[in-house]
């Protein structure tokens, strides 16, 4: 407990949630001003897991810095790597083979599903239902197995290299992915039975954590958080990269603006990801999985930016190059940081229990916010 400075109104209490608290999923510190159960102010404090990744990347070469980005948003590690590879390729102006493009997109979507699965479980656990967490892991585990087989690791894959992917797909890959899709379709209705349709859950989510479209835009929210408020911001649709412009999938928009809308966006997004995978899995083009690149990569002098859609929203990589083999300055635009900033707006006036639900629907990964 800190000293109670700044409590002005009678009955206001300052309370620290985190950095070691079961609800924050990591080392986030929220300084709450509450009156009884009602929240009056939320102040997120960061810095507990700051590793200065951006500075670190400035001393690493263009091949090396990609792996570090897996440690930011570790649940969409693959998509982070993808963004970095894309920006380097943009600078080098290499054309990557179409097989590599398809493989990258497939992996991205698998990662997105895995991330949403974990979010679903953790979200239910925030609300006090422990069982969905374990059930979500069953599906997530089969994605992890696919990753382990092809990329060699389960969480921080480091599979993407500038110019393509590190090695070819595992021969079993297609079969394993199809097995996963079968499993997913068999089990997805349980998500509705256990959580979505549950009256307690619906009452906890509906009308809670209101974030209007204007607020979502002005706070810079992206990803499912903004799409739950009806803001169209899917980078895959707006600024397509790789093969997304040739694919048939929908951008999910909900207009509820509340926690339930954000929840539904993610659930429906998983189905869209499955749709993308189904379109690609049988038509992976033959050919090289990696373009020929020089041993030492040197980006021309200039500035380069690339954004992708991670499981949490828009992730951007900005590189300033002086022509050397390491970036002069690197900046990541992480989705979690902007999404977290909307928390205060959402939480004011609601109950303490709802704060946890709101944080759940923001899908915060702290190392992503606090690089």
């Amino acid at each position, binding site marked *: 407990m800190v000293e109670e400075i700044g409590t002005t109104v009678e009955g206001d209490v300052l309370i620290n949630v985190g950095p070691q608290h079961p609800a924050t999923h990591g080392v986030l510190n929220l300084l709450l001003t509450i009156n009884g159960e009602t929240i009056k102010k939320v102040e997120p404090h960061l810095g507990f897991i700051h590793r200065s990744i951006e500075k670190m990347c400035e001393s690493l070469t263009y*091949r090396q810095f990609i*792996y*570090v980005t897996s440690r930011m948003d570790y649940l969409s590690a693959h998509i982070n790597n993808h963004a970095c590879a894309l920006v380097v390729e943009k600078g080098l102006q290499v054309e990557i083979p179409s097989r590599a493009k398809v493989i990258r997109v497939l992996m991205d979507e698998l990662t997105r599903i895995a991330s949403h699965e974990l979010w679903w479980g953790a979200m239910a656990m925030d609300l006090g239902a422990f069982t969905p967490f374990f059930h979500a892991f069953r599906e997530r585990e089969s994605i992890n197995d696919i990753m382990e087989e092809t990329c060699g*690791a389960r969480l921080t894959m480091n599979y993407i290299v500038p110019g393509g992917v590190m090695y070819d797909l595992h021969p079993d890959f297609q079969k394993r992915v199809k097995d996963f899709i079968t499993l997913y379709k068999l089990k997805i209705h349980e998500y509705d039975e256990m959580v979505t349709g549950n009256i307690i859950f619906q009452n906890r989510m509906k009308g809670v954590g209101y974030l209007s479209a204007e607020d979502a835009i002005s706070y810079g929210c992206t990803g499912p958080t903004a799409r739950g408020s009806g803001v169209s911001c899917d980078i895959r649709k707006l600024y397509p990269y790789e093969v997304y412009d040739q694919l048939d999938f929908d951008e999910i928009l909900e207009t509820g603006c509340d926690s339930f809308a954000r929840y539904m966006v993610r659930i429906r997004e998983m189905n869209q990801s499955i749709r993308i995978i189904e379109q690609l899995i049988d038509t992976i083009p033959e050919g090289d999985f990696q373009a020929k690149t020089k041993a030492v990569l040197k980006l021309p002098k200039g500035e380069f930016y690339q954004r992708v859609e991670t499981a949490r929203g828009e992730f951007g990589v900005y590189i300033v190059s002086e022509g050397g083999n390491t970036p002069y300055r690197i900046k990541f635009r992480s989705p979690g940081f902007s999404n977290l900033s909307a928390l205060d707006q959402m939480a004011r006036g609601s109950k303490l229990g709802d704060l946890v639900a709101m944080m759940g629907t923001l899908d915060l990964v702290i190392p992503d916010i606090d690089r």
Partner: protein
Amino acid sequence: MFIIKYIKEVFSGLKSLAVGLRRTLYYFTHHKEIITEQYPDNRETLKLSDRFKGEVVMLHDENNEHACTGCTACELACPNATIKIITQFDITPEGKKKKALDKFVYHLELCTMCNLCIVACPTDAIKMAQTFEHSVYDRSELTKILNKPGSHIRAGVE
């Protein structure tokens, strides 16, 4: 009417709860759905995929020969300064001096299993092993010399 709406609310609520209860009862009674792996007991049957990145090892053949030329490409590729190549000068049969590997020092505790060194190696001298039980009692045990004592470079590898 108010009363009808009220009763409907109660029943639809109870029904949604019953649906959830039925699902959990199904899992409670169907133990074949259990997915837990009994880890230390299933060591024999536990098979990791052959690409699993567990630890960097150096390949030696039956003559205790490896393929490492000591070119330090892996050392340069490594983002974490995990690898330290110590070279020496061998005298070849022709009497010329030739750079060769003395010690391949590998700090497992610094390694992030990123695979960059394996990709960088021109002679495929090192590879990833599928071990994952790395815990030891002392940190110094994690610093390993990968080339076996008395090993030499395979003839013909440049």
